[in-house]
C-alpha cells in the first residue's frame, strides 16, 4: 500500500525544487521588510502572500517531518472525515474533499495545487496513505498503530508536503467512538472558528454575518481587501494592516464573552460579528 514506507518525503526533480526553495526564500525575505502588522500580533500569524498557485514552503512541518506548503485560503483544499463502524471489522472511513483531487498516478512528482493524497493518523501516529475517498480501517491496523480514538485525515501534495492554510495543515479529525475506548476529545491545534472575508469595491463577501465561537477557543480571520486598509477587532482591540490584494491572517484567543465587531477602519465596513459564548 505504501510505496515509500521509509521515506518521509521524496524530493521532486532536484533543480525544480531548488528554484521553488529560492523563490520562497526571496519572498520570505521581501515580505519580512514590508507589510508588517501594526499591533498586537500573536507570534506565528503572518501576512505574507502565498507564491503562485503551488503555495509556499514553510519551515514548519506537520509533526512527522513533512514540511507545510502554504496556500491562499481562497480555493485551498479542504477535507472532512467521517468514520462509521463496519459490521465485520473496524471502521469505514470516508473523506469528503473540496478543491482537491486524489492523484495516485503522479505521487512523488512536483506539488500541484489541489492534487495529491491524504494520510490518516491515529492519535498522531501514522496509519495509512489514502488515494480515494473511501478507506477500510481494520482493527489490526489500529492495534498495530498502538491504539487510540482520534482519527485525523490530512491532505498532502504529490511531493509529500502537507497542504496548509494560515500555517496550519489542512486536516480534519473525528473520534472513533464505541467499542475501541471512551471518546477523548483531544485539544485541537487547528482554530475553532475561521472566517474568510474578502472586500471588493466596498462590498463585503460573504455579507456580514455572525461567527460563533466558544470562549477560550481560537479565532482565525482571513481577510483580503482590494485596497489598503486596517483590520480591527473591537473589544479585543486587535489590529492588522490589510495591504491591497493580500490575504491577511489574524489569529487570537477569544477570551471575553460578548458580541464583538470586526471591521475595517478606512472603508469603515463591518465584516462580521464574533459571538463569543
Amino acid at each position, binding site marked *: 500500500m505504501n510505496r515509500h514506507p521509509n521515506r518521509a518525503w521524496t524530493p521532486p526533480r532536484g533543480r525544480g525544487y531548488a528554484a521553488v526553495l529560492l523563490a520562497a526564500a526571496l519572498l520570505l525575505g521581501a515580505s519580512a521588510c514590508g507589510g508588517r502588522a501594526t499591533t498586537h500580533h500573536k507570534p506565528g500569524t503572518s501576512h505574507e502572500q502565498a507564491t503562485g498557485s503551488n503555495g509556499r514552503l514553510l519551515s514548519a512541518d506537520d509533526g512527522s517531518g513533512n514540511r507545510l506548503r502554504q496556500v491562499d485560503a481562497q480555493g485551498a483544499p479542504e477535507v472532512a472525515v467521517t468514520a462509521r463502524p463496519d459490521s465485520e471489522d473496524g471502521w469505514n472511513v470516508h473523506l469528503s474533499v473540496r478543491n482537491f483531487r486524489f492523484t495516485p498516478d503522479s505521487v512523488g512528482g512536483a506539488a500541484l495545487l489541489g492534487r495529491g493524497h491524504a494520510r490518516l493518523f491515529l492519535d498522531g501516529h501514522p496509519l495509512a496513505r489514502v488515494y480515494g475517498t473511501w478507506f477500510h480501517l481494520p482493527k489490526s491496523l489500529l492495534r498495530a498503530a498502538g491504539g487510540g480514538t482520534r482519527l485525523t485525515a490530512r491532505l498532502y501534495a504529490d511531493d509529500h508536503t502537507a497542504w496548509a492554510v494560515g500555517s496550519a495543515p489542512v486536516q480534519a479529525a473525528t473520534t472513533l467512538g464505541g467499542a475501541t475506548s471512551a471518546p477523548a476529545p483531544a485539544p485541537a491545534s487547528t482554530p475553532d472558528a475561521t472566517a474568510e472575508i474578502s472586500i471588493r469595491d466596498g462590498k463585503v463577501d460573504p*455579507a*456580514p454575518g455572525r461567527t460563533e465561537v466558544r470562549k477560550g477557543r481560537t479565532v482565525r480571520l482571513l481577510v483580503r481587501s482590494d485596497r489598503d486598509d486596517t483590520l480591527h477587532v473591537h473589544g479585543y*482591540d486587535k489590529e492588522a494592516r490589510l495591504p491591497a490584494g493580500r490575504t491577511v491572517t489574524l489569529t487570537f484567543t477569544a477570551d471575553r464573552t460578548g458580541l464583538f*465587531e470586526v*471591521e475595517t477602519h*478606512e472603508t469603515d465596513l463591518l465584516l462580521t460579528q464574533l459571538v463569543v459564548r
Partner: protein
Amino acid sequence: MTALDDSGAVSVLAHGIGAQHDLPLSPFYAFAGAFAALFVSFLALGLLWSASRFRGDRAGRPLPVAVQRAADARSTRIAVRALGLAAALLVVLYLVLGPADPDRNPAPGAVYVLLWVGLVPASLLFGPVWQLLNPLRTLHLLGCRVLRRDPAAGRPLPPRVGMWPAAAGLLAFTWLELVAPDPASPTALLLFLGLFSAAQFTGAALYGARWFGRADAFEVYSGLLARLSPLGRRPADRRLVLRSPFNGLDATPQLPGLVATVCVMLGSTAYDGFSDAPSWITTVQTSALGRTTTATLGLLGAVALVAALYALCAGATRLLSGQLAHPLTAFAHSLVPIALGYLVAHYFTLFVTEGPRTVMVALGADNPAPPEPPLGPGGVATLQVLAIVLGHVLGVVAAHDRSVRLFPPGRAVAGQLPLLVLMVAYTIGGLALLIA
C-alpha cells in the same frame, strides 16, 4: 509610517462608544419572558382592582425634616450645581484640547455613557437629578444674576408647545449617537453641544427658566424616569416623600408632546437593538442612498412605527370606550416603564463596563481595558428579560388603574384591551430585538 498609523487611529469607532455588545438572547429566555408578559397581562385584566387606587401627587410618606432640610439647604444646592457645571466644563475642555482618539479622550464616554445612560439609575434613585445638575440651567441662573434679571421672567410658554422641543432634542441626540457617521469625534460632539446649548439659551431668554423643564431633552428624560423613583416631592407642601413608583407615574403631567417623547425613547432604543443585526448592517452598507441617509430613515422608521402602533391603539380605545377626550395622552405615562425596561436591557453592560473605563481615562489612564462585566452571559440575559417583563408589568398596572378611573365601570375591561395588546406587542418586539 508613524503618520499613517496615527491618522488611521483617528478615524475610528463607527459605533460611538463601547467595543462590546451583549450576546444575542437565547430563544429560551425570550419565550419565557414573552410567556410571563402575556400571563401577567391577562391576570391583570381579571384580578386587579376595579376602582382607581393611585393618588398621584398627593401620595407619599414624608422624609424626616432633617433629611429634607439637608437636601434643600442652599449649600447643598449650590454644591450640586457647581458639580454639574464643573463636570460640563471638564467635558468641553477635553473636547477642545484633548486627544481626538476616543479611546484616550473621556469626553465621548462622559456624554454617551455617564450622562445619557447614567441618568437612568441616577433618576431612578434620586428623582429628577438633571434639573439640579443641568449646567445650562446653572449658566442661565448666573447670567440672569449678572444682568440683574429674574430667572423666571419671560413670556408664558404656549400650551401647545408642551414637551415637543424635548422630543425633538431627544431625537437629535439619539440621531447623533446611533446614526451620525462619527459620533465619538470631538468635532461632532462640540457641534451638537453648541447647537443644543444655543437653542436652550434662546428658549430660556424668551420664556424664562421654566423652558428647561419642558424643552431640555435631558431634563425631560431624567424627569420622566424619575417618575418611577421612590423619592419624590409632593407639590402641595413641597415635602420630600417616599412614594410608590405607581403614584409618581400617575402624576406624570399630560402635556402635548408626552407621547412623542416616550415614542422617541422607545423607538431609538429599539433602533439601537436592530442596528446590531447583520442584516440591517448589510442594508446600510450596501444601500444606494448612502449610509447616513439609510440609517436616519431606519431611526425615523423605528420611532414612527412605535408611534403609529400607539396611535392605532388610542383610536381603538376611543372606539371601544366612547367619549374620551385625549386617549392618546391619557395613557402615555404607562409606556415610561416599558421604555425603562428597554433602556436597562440594552445599556446595562455598556454602563458597567464603559462607565468605569471613562472614569479611568479621565483620571489619566492611557487607553485602559474596560473591566470585566459583573454578570456572565446567563446573568445578563436574565437581567434583560426581567427588565423588559418588569417594565411591561408596571406599564400594565399603571394603565389598568388609569382606565378604571377614566372609563365607566362596565367598559373598563374592554377599554384597556387595545392598550394591553399594544404593550404585549412592544414587549415581544423588545424581546425579539434582543434575540436578533
